[in-house]
């Protein structure tokens, strides 16, 4: 079986079978990162361009490592060092990169839809590494991979997603993915951070964290964008933390052995108490490790190397 598509721009456009295929392909690449020589020749001669219009350390590094472990050539391209500041459009920038025979463009952009717009404008494959508040599909896939690795079954799985859902591409991609796979999704946050009609995306909305955590199998915390405080979404970090911060006591409301996840970087003491982040329940570092495997799998499937 292969992925019959040029691009990966959203979870919303994937079928459950495609999601399963990506997870299974990543399985076979996870082992590579544990070898002494962490390299396979699958993408030798291919060029991957990381086109990042937003600062990012872990996602960019993860894609870079994934591409290098597949023996691809990797170029990092960020707008501060480019002609973007001179007024070049996204499409023109990408076409220039394409003219240099890039096989795969990994795009991170502050505007929703940027990856889809790019994908229709260039022949290279496009992987969405986060577009505005829209989607971050590789993050959701690595989250699924981590849950599956911990022997969780998606059908009927109870997952609480906690925080600023409205402005989170991680939340959207996970909601799309988990609802496709039959999980029960609880979206938790202050009403200011819950987008309209969220229930119609298959998530049940909670404003009370304690109520939402009862009996869940997975607690997925979102990073609080501290700079949003000025936009009247929440009164203070102190109050946000008191109402929506994950403490050890709150973890105990969930199923025994529930997983605690976070896309990183964690604001310790804000959305998550330090002892929770470092606890046995936390799979935050597994998520980071699995990110490389998932991205290897996606690069491999889109490169047509299979």
């Amino acid at each position: 079986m292969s992925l019959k598509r040029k691009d990966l721009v959203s979870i919303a456009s994937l079928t459950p079978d495609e999601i399963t295929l990506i997870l299974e392909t990543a399985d076979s690449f996870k082992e590579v990162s544990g070898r002494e020589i962490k390299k396979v020749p699958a993408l030798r001669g291919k060029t991957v361009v990381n086109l990042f219009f937003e600062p990012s350390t872990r996602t960019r590094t993860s894609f870079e490592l994934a591409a290098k472990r597949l023996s691809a050539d990797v170029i990092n391209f960020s707008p501060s060092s480019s002609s973007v500041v001179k007024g070049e459009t996204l499409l023109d920038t990408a076409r220039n990169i394409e003219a240099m025979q890039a096989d795969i463009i990994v795009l991170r952009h502050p505007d929703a839809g940027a990856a889809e717009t790019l994908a229709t404008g260039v022949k290279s494959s496009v992987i969405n590494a986060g577009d505005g508040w829209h989607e971050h599909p590789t993050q959701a896939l690595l989250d699924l991979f981590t849950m599956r690795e911990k022997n969780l079954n998606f059908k009927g799985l109870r997952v609480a997603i906690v925080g600023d859902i409205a402005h989170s591409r991680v939340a959207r991609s996970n909601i799309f993915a988990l609802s496709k796979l039959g999980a029960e999704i609880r979206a938790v946050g202050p009403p200011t951070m819950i987008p309209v009609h969220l229930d119609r995306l298959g998530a049940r909305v909670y404003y009370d964290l304690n109520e939402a955590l009862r009996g869940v199998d997975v607690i997925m915390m979102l990073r609080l964008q501290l700079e949003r405080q000025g936009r009247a979404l929440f009164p203070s970090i102190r109050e946000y933390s008191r109402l929506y911060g994950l403490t050890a006591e709150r973890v105990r409301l969930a199923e025994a052995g529930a997983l605690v996840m976070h896309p990183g970087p964690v604001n310790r003491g804000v959305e998550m108490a330090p002892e929770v982040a470092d606890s046995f329940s936390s799979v935050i570092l597994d998520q980071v490790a699995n990110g490389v495997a998932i991205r290897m799998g996606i690069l491999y499937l889109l490169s047509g190397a299979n």
Partner: protein
Amino acid sequence: MAILIKGGQVIDPGRVNGPADVLIDNGKILAVGQNLAPPAGKPGPSATIIDARGKLVLPGLVDLHVHLREPGFEYKETIQTGTAAAVAGGFTSVCCMPNTSPVNDNQSITEFILEQARAAGNAHVFPVGAITKGSEGKELAEIGELRDAGCVAISDDGQPVVNSLIMRRAMEYALAFDLPVIDHCEDLQLAEGGCMNEGLVSTQLGLPGIPSAAEDVMVARNLALAELTKARLHLAHLSTAGSVRMVRAAKSRGIRVTAEVCPHHFSLTEEAVRGFNTHAKMNPPLRTWQDVQAIKEGLRDGTIDVIATDHAPHAVQDKQQQFAAAPNGIVGLETALPLTLALVEEGVLSLEAAVAKLTAEPARAFGLSKGSLAPGADADVVVVDPEAHWEVDPARFRSKSRNTPFAGWKVKGRVITTIVAGRVVYDAA
């Protein structure tokens, strides 16, 4: 030269609705009636006969809301191309918004626009002047001078007048000239940089949304100020059910308000944005099915007086960007008539009411002596084949720009001939 339009169905709202001939001479309507003949002493080649059997013969359409982009954005549209698009769409009079560069906030810009319009020789152009200098919302523009130069209304267009005191003063001041004050109703704080309707689709696409309340609160404010000042208020491109409700209530209480809607706001919903389609990006944004129903009801019961296009040309490279970066607006002059006639097919409006919302009603709202076939009126006439089916092909637009969400739509009703001041300026044949 005389023109005799024979055998058509004449619809001159409130005056004529039935088979009649229209006789034009010296740029004026000479007569509308049965079995008319060319004026005596004008036989032969000096009189043109237009066979309008099976066609509608209407007053030239009047568009209260277009962006002709000149001066300043000639790469999107010029007064020449914009008015060529107008007459191709059946519009013989257009009111152009002041958001040019520089802004039309003084006599010299108004005169420049009128001069370019005369040189183009297509449709009549009625400039709309700015409410405030530079449309910055701070100091009133010299509204008396703008009126004297030829402006027919004032508006800060896409820059709603945020300061309610400035808006009050503008409305009071405009009373001296009986000029309508137009507002694009949007609370910019509430809109918070949104780029589509706030609703299910914005939640799914992760695009910042503009709630319908951003329009509603400004409509409410403007209606309150119109009541306070007794000024003539014209509300541009209403898009929400709430706006329609408030305007209906205001009219029933005698407030002097007229309201317009655009064809895209009754033909499309927020669903058109899916796929991050920048040709479905405009402000106010496409709303929901419920809003569309409310707008249709408002058109039907007369709450909404006018259908206007908000013709907003943008070049290919402007729209070929990620959704948030693309500018708002679509071209509308060459698709408005069939989209309006679709409301007749659907049973929302009678044919005469639909024609009125494109002719007599907009003329009344801005006090233009247009939109009528009364003897003595300027001979602005459009002949329409109501049964012609055609497919919207942006490549064939007269406009310089192609930004339409209606490409490929199969529509019905086509402009055959457009006459401005007794001169044929467009002929599809």
